[in-house]
């Protein structure tokens, strides 16, 4: 099987390790991985702030790049949502672009969904002897309905101690542009989340969205809380090469 990665701009520029981990997992499972360097961003920053025309330009570029690919795998819930749910809405008035967007949307999968539901993988063979908890990213959970897949994969990690936190599905406060338009509300929401993470006793908080992780990590570091953030892909890639 061949997969086209959409690595997302944040992972590309800030957290390349997540991309490397994604690739490592897929290759281990015998998937042929391809990275088209024409890819950039899904357009969310513009779309979420109401700059629809700008978002459309970026979405069009995405559709061009991924026009012929088979499976597109994305290590991000919100970027997958952008492609699967919002691209077709962006092109509501352009039927040919819309059907292309829908078509590409059907071939696009968030990483945990791809592993569990498409490949039918139960474990990646990772081992991680630590206490971890999982934060549900909003779009992944509420737009794509993905909550059991990442949990199953986490539970299957050897020697892991997985503990659910209270209010695991409450927004962490990132919200894209919201995080800088309303920094005080955003970080107050984040502080609640940090409290629940600590309450679980976990030393690592796992999530499938870099936005949430960057925001949470920023808060954890600023407040010197001894908890680390980790992307699901990084956790699942903790196996011997």
């Amino acid at each position, binding site marked *: 099987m061949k997969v086209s990665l959409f690595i997302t701009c944040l992972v590309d520029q800030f957290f390349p390790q997540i991309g490397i981990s994604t690739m490592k997992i897929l290759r281990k499972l015998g998937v042929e991985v391809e990275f088209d360097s024409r890819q950039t961003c899904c357009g969310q920053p513009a779309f979420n702030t*109401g700059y629809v025309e700008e978002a459309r330009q970026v979405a069009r570029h995405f559709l061009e790049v991924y026009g012929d690919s088979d499976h597109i795998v994305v290590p991000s819930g919100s970027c997958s949502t952008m492609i699967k749910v919002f691209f077709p809405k962006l092109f509501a008035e352009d039927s040919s672009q819309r059907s292309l967007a829908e078509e590409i949307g059907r071939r696009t999968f968030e990483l945990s969904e791809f592993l569990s539901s498409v490949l039918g993988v139960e474990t990646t063979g990772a081992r991680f002897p630590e206490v971890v908890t999982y934060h549900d990213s909003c779009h992944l959970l509420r737009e794509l309905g993905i909550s059991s897949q990442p949990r199953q994969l986490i539970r299957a990690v050897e020697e892991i101690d997985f503990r659910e936190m209270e209010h695991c599905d409450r927004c962490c406060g990132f919200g894209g542009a919201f995080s800088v338009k309303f920094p005080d509300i955003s970080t107050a929401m984040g502080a609640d989340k940090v409290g629940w993470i600590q309450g679980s006793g976990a030393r690592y908080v796992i999530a499938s969205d870099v936005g949430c992780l960057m925001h949470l990590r920023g808060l954890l570091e600023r407040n010197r809380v001894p908890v680390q953030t980790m992307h699901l892909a990084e956790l699942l890639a903790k196996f011997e090469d």
Partner: protein
Amino acid sequence: MVVKISANVQSALADETLQGNLRRAFVDTLHSRNEAVSEVPNWEELRDYARDVKAHTLSRLPEYLQSLEEKVLEQGGKVIWAETGQEAVQFIVDLSHRREIREVVKGKSMLSEEIHLNESLERAQIKPVETDLGEYVIQLAGEKPSHLVAPALHKSRKQIADLFVQELGMAPTGDVLEITATARKLLRRHFLTARMGITGVNFAVAETGTIVIVENEGNVGLSVAVPEIHIALMGIEKVIPRSRDLAVFLKLLIRSATGQKITSYVNCLSGPRRSDELDGPQEFYLILIDNGRTKILADDFMRESLSCIRCGACLNVCPVYQTIGGHAYGSTYQGPLGAMLTPLLTSVSEAPEHAFASSLCGACHEVCPVKIPIPQILLKLRERFQSERNQKAASFSLEKLVMQVWARVMCAPSLYARLGRWARIVDKVCGKRGMGRLPVPPFSRWMKHRDLPALPPQSFRELYSKEVS
């Protein structure tokens, strides 16, 4: 008038009593709501049904309103059509003056807040007395409701007791029953003397002309039965076609709002007192208020927002509302509902921040009993806000320029890659805190309470191309 949420955030966050109250309220109310909903096996079906009924009704609103009017007239009531809040207020003031009424008792009505009825009555020398306990507290304190179901949610029991001691001369007590008894005793007098009662409406049934008002305190029952005149204020979107649908709507409303199975009272009112009846008003007026609603009705994308049954569930579940409370919104309606409705009822330029004050987490859509896609509507409002702002020729928007440049870059992969390399150099030059040190937004705003990770030495694409070669 332009309302800005950002101006109120700091004080809301610093108010410890408010923070404590919000926390308690959200844990308790959400818990009861979730329990009550889990008892209804076909909850999802009911939501779909209610949404469809609302959509159908809104698509034929004039017809249903006309039929409602006919039925109310048949029952001996009167119907007043008010295009603006001002018209509704004027009617009430004029009628009170003609009848020499100096005091009115009021049941809880968000619509009366929306049209600023109390202020206008007071200016016209008519004393409005709020009779819902929460509203009564708010009125005593000279404040505005901070939640559409629990107007005094921002106040603690202690604050209310203190207020009663100060304003009503109650002997100091922490006993809720005593506090309630004090209000009850005082309100009873007003019920007996006031000659006009004003209430809101939860549902109005077009086929029968029945007005339905739910409540827990019995104050609505008294407000509509004792005074000579009952005036019901109703937004035109509150009509439903048939009484058989009430069962569904009441179930959805009450379980979502308070987590009860049914409220203590469900008042079903059909016109003024008949000759063979012992109580009820001699005159009944139904004021149908538009106040911006037909504008929303004509807007295909936004129409669904009129399906709202004002249950307040979206407020209770909203992490933003839970964080800043209702007053910070600076508008009659708050939380996700207010974020959506305020710019719709006024304009995006008068409420420029409402649609942006949301992380778009979608929790509101998930609980809304009539499935209003609030996040989608907020996104659309954001779009309208930007296009309106950018249409004004004189206004230069740096944000717009940044977005345009950003979009160009994102469509030009090699430029994007080059800028990434430059950013990493800048980040390194900046030292320990990296680009976070730059004293400009968005960095400064991000850095206010959190750190920014340093950029890695190489991007993914660089690592990948190295690996491939």
